[in-house]
């Protein structure tokens, strides 16, 4: 099964700046999901983009998907201290159990 690989592994920016995280995967997908995990807590679903969609917005979040390049990006605009967290992409396999396979995530730190 495939794994979402996030890049960069760590990102540190100033409050108010935009943060961009990238994800690459290996094979065909049903959809791709992004999750956030604050330190020591469970994961929270942020956004789901289907394989036939190219871009999706949710509040300050913008996700793009390029199935020809097998890549996705998550943009957080006007970052806030509360955005400090680890962000994971999780491609959903098109075959079999269609399970999600998480990568190691991007650790985002927003500096005041």
């Amino acid at each position, binding site marked *: 099964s495939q794994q979402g690989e996030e890049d960069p592994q760590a990102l540190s920016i100033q409050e108010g700046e935009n943060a961009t995280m990238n994800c690459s995967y290996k094979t065909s997908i*049903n*959809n791709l*999901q992004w*999750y956030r995990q604050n330190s020591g*807590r*469970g*994961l*929270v*679903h942020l956004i*789901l983009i289907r394989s036939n969609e190219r871009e999706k917005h949710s509040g300050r979040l913008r996700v793009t998907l390029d199935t020809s390049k097998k890549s996705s990006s998550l943009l957080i605009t006007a970052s806030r201290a509360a955005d400090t967290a680890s962000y*994971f992409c999780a491609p*959903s396999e098109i075959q*079999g*159990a*269609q*399970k*999600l*396979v*998480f*990568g*190691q*995530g991007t650790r985002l730190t927003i500096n005041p």
Partner: protein
Amino acid sequence: EAGVAQSPRYKIIEKRQSVAFWCNPISGHATLYWYQQILGQGPKLLIQFQNNGVVDDSQLPKDRFSAERLKGVDSTLKIQPAKLEDSAVYLCASSSYHYNEQFFGPGTRLTVL
């Protein structure tokens, strides 16, 4: 709607002991997942249930780990006997269907001494 409930939140045991975790998914969610998350890594799927049947358990160490989902609702994950490398956070998640968004519980932090 109530979220995914897990208990206990924390557990400390010695190696070779047994431990069990409990999960109550969101009402009506057919799919239930157990993940293991080691510090600094992403969650790794251990087992996926669809109602009370196992869909995927390819990464479950079956010599020591077992899981069941009674009546397609609550689930328990057991480790017997525990090893030092089992120290991790065990996350339970549920979804209305297997490729939809997953809702995670707070997790159980297991420390094996």
